[in-house]
């Protein structure tokens, strides 16, 4: 690709980029992946299952490698491995309190083994494999319109399921005991969420590669949760942030010949740092105001003393 020059006139830049059909498809696919990965990732971050999420995204790599080696469709490799790994993780969580951290070692075992399998499959396949780079970091060039349609349908399915189970899933994630007492199928939702995570990962990893999809899952969600504690707003913000960094990454990747994944991840990481900085500053201002303003907001012991019998 000849390196075009970024002009700061965004209208002109987008006109130029969108004159290439592969870029149009890249932007479409990026938008879909960002929103779907963000929504699923928001729950993943809230449930503190980032390690499970990372494992599932890494598993996409041996899946793709095996599909290439054995000569069946790449999609089948991605979906098969991610969903199977999700079920294995769910089975290993069985009998444990949801949200516990004890499963991390077992999750790590699965991840290490499957990653090693991926390298084996690659070593066995000595032919035309592009090497691990494409599988891990993806390639946004060369996405067909058919792929975008498949991506959109799979993404829509994931979002619909998430919308249907979202509220009980949130309840089960934050407060599993009370949710269970209220009749929410906490264990079933836990399994369903892992499978959903697997499907979303498999779907997105085909475009973004195994590692970038994890970045898109964790970074916008973590940033949004730093910025607001309102669940609805936080979820919306996650989608917006994911969308923004992906498109910004695509623009940067088009004009500067460095890996797309680096741009997307760096932008997302930059926003994450900014969000933390903003929260820190807000707290400092609040503390300063409380210290100077004779603190009428005493919500602690003073309010409680009245009830003592």
């Amino acid at each position, binding site marked *: 690709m000849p390196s075009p020059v970024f002009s700061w006139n965004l209208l002109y830049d987008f006109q130029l980029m969108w004159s290439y059909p592969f870029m149009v498809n890249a932007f479409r696919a990026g938008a879909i992946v960002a929103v779907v990965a963000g929504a699923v990732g928001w729950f993943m971050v*809230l449930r*503190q299952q980032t390690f499970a999420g990372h494992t599932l995204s890494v598993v996409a790599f041996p899946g793709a490698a095996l599909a290439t080696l054995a000569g069946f469709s790449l999609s089948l490799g991605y979906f098969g491995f991610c969903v199977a790994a999700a079920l294995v993780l769910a089975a290993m969580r069985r009998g444990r309190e949801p949200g516990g951290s004890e499963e991390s070692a077992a999750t790590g075992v699965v991840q290490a083994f499957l990653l090693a399998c991926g390298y084996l499959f690659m070593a066995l396949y000595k032919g035309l494999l592009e090497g691990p780079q494409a599988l891990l970091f993806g390639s946004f060039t060369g996405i067909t319109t058919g792929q975008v349609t498949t991506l959109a349908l799979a993404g829509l399915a994931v979002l619909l399921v998430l*919308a*249907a*189970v*979202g*509220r*009980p899933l*949130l*309840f089960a994630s*934050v*407060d599993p*005991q*009370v*949710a*269970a*007492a*209220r*009749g*929410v199928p906490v264990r079933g939702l836990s399994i369903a969420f892992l499978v959903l995570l697997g499907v979303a990962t498999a779907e997105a990893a085909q475009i973004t590669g195994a590692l970038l999809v994890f970045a898109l899952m964790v970074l916008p969600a973590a940033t949004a*949760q*730093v910025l*607001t*504690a*309102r*669940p609805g707003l*936080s979820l919306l913000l996650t989608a917006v942030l994911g969308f923004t960094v992906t498109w910004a990454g695509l623009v940067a990747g088009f004009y500067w010949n460095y890996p797309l994944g680096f741009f997307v991840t760096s932008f997302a990481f930059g926003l994450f740092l900014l969000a933390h900085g903003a929260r820190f500053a807000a707290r400092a201002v609040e503390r300063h105001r409380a210290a100077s303003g004779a603190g009428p*907001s005493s*919500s*602690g*012991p003073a*309010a*409680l*003393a*009245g*009830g*003592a*019998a």
Partner: protein
Amino acid sequence: MNPVVAKAAESETGSGVALDVTPTSEPVLCLCGAAARVGGRTLWSGVDLEVQAGEFVAVLGPNGVGKSTLVKVLLGIVPAAEGEIRVLGRRPGEAGSRVGYLPQRRSFDPDLRIRGVDVVRMGLDGDRWGVPLPWARNRRAQQRRVDEVIELVGASAYAHRPIGQCSGGEQQRLLIAQALVRRPEVLLLDEPLDSLDLPNQSAVAALIGRICHEENVAVVMVAHDVNPILHHLDRVVYIAEGGAVCGPPSEVVNSETLTRLYRTPVEVLSTQDGRLVVVGQPEAPAVHTNRHAG
């Protein structure tokens, strides 16, 4: 002063029912000859208890005797091994939102970025499937109910902060609000005062007593210390050594009754400010290490 010792053997004589309630209305909770078995071990048996609306009942006893299991039996999470149990005239677990539940102390992760008001809201409609529609007709009413119940427990000042950043007492009030938000007729509380400091213990106890008597909610509360709630209590269930005694606090928490229950000399001392101290009870060996076993 004739407390009824409700052990399996004795209840067969017909005397094993706590009777000192005015039988004006249908009891809210009713256990008759109930027994619980966990992992093949009988925790308690022959428990008879009737709780009326607006009554405040404490479940007391040493650690590991199955106090929490009693609450779980009432919720229908753990099946009763024997006996007849009715919750609001139905079988346990069938009364739905008419029963509010506050499990044993759970503290939220300090990094959890969900507001207290959202946690309360989950108590209202967190178990519904699908997306809440912004144009739904009852949306306002639901919002008002959440605000109202937060006001009731006195949590308005911090309900909009992330719940992980609230203190233990603040979190406990918000969780009580969550348990109350659907206007339950029965409130089952499992050690709600556990790990709160003393001022917070008495404040939360007073709050529960007020809700119980003013809102006419029957409260069954598991506690390991009777003193913070003593003034608010109507009745006590004391579980020990596989049996249970029910009755007013003064008739149960005394040397005579507890000696009979434990079958070993136990003395109940009263301090100058009216606090009760039980001396000589055979505590389970793992007193401080495994409170969750109960």
